[in-house]
């Protein structure tokens, strides 16, 4: 049955995020998996600064790994990243982009948002923003209604005074 063949050929591999340290007389250089990215996006929302810090040692990444040596020997376009936060058990799956490094970065951002909601509950940044947005909308609605009321009152006053004039 061709439908399931390609699934059986894939092996899922889970990896703790500890890299091989560079040795030979130099102090061990721990290579974090996703580098070259600014931790806080300058153009992004302010709230990201307040999100919980993610420790790479608490994370487990899962990748689809085929048989054979990989690298130049394969050309796979599937780059889904599954990230698990060991202490809480939260799992994030990301295949939003065509780049595996971007998916890993994005998975971590989503993880930080999820953890924020879990840790802070009502006080979480996401919920704060939602609440702020709700209050703003409420305020807007109130102002609109107020203005409508004022207009109605003005029209009534206008027509009442006109009537009065006509009656004279």
């Amino acid at each position, binding site marked *: 049955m*061709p*439908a399931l063949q*390609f699934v059986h050929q894939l092996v899922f*591999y889970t*990896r703790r995020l500890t*890299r*091989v*340290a*560079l*040795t*030979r007389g*130099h102090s061990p*250089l721990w*290579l*974090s*998996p*996703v*580098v*070259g990215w600014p931790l806080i996006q300058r153009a992004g929302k302010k709230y990201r600064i307040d999100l919980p810090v993610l420790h790479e040692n608490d994370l487990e*990444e899962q*990748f689809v*790994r085929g048989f054979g*040596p*990989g*690298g*130049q*020997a*394969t*050309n*796979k*376009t*599937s*780059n889904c990243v599954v990230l698990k936060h060991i202490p809480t058990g939260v799992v994030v799956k990301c*295949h*939003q*982009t*065509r*780049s*595996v*490094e*971007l998916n890993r970065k994005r998975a971590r951002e989503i993880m930080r948002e999820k953890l924020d909601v879990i840790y802070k509950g009502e006080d979480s940044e996401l919920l704060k923003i939602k609440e702020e947005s709700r209050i703003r909308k409420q305020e807007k609605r109130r102002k609109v209604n107020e203005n409508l009321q004022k207009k109605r009152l003005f029209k009534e006053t206008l027509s009442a005074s006109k009537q009065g004039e006509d009656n004279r």
Partner: protein
Amino acid sequence: MNGILKLVINQLRRGITKQETLVTLPCRAAGGAVAPPADCSVTVEEAVSLWTQHFLQHGVSEPLSSSHYIIAHVLGKKTLESVERRRLRETLTDKERECVWKLCSKRLTRMPVQYVIEEWDFRDLTLKMRPPVFIPRPETEELVSLVLEHLQSEQVMKARGKAAVHCLEIGCGSGAISLSLLHSVPQLKGIALDQSQEAVCLTKENASRLGLQDRLEVRKLDIMKDAALIVRDYGPVDVLVSNPPYLFTEDMASLEAEILKFEDHSALDGGLDGMSVISQILALAPQLLTNEGRLYLEVDPRHPPLLQWLVEEQTEGLHYLGTSCDLTTRPRFCVLQRSG
């Protein structure tokens, strides 16, 4: 032909898919082209389902993702996830339908998705792709991360101040590595070499598209044949980087059709032990690097111990800093340093 397709689509709408009916889909013209249904409308979802089945039937690898990427591309998106849920249930325009059929037919010939849609992403860059120039692999994104970690480290930033940093790439292909580095390190100036004219052209094209052409010199040069010229004109640099052909010749024959039929074999075949180009780079590195300059290589998982031995026993002026693993925990990257 159209009648059969209508039947299939009606069955899909009713939630029934019959394998037998799909077998009698429009027959292939020469070269694997499949004619689109002329008077039959399909929704995005239906097209995805149809082509996934079609790819499966014909043994095309990654049938679902192939279908997703190609159809998303026709709709102007990079992934199907980026397409609005509502759009998925809407019909394709005639133009879109024709395009989907044309591109998916190419995929039927085992052409890699990246060549079908003529582009692919590498880290945060979108690059043009064209056969037979080697398609960047996801592992190589990590190679760039390693180099960036070094270039952006406090130590290096302090030492350099505002002075330019120079890097040289051997075997640039589509320009993925050099362009990623240039994009992330403003004071970096790069030289990219490749023995293939097509690769040189594509790298130049990608550099222009990204506005990086002023900081990247691209030359058609062969590290095996033009070594003396390269050392004379381009050494020494702060960083030497390469994803050289590193496959073992004996492994070439068992490569998947996507690679064998469409990619440049000279970008893959590293000789008997996969070390022919790597050895040459190691031999030239002491002359190409500044003192304490670094060499970053992507290799086959069997190579790191060989490299370490070669460097320790036979190469003066170079020492082995360490090996780093890729996402699948295979030893993949070798880092070396020029020593006085």
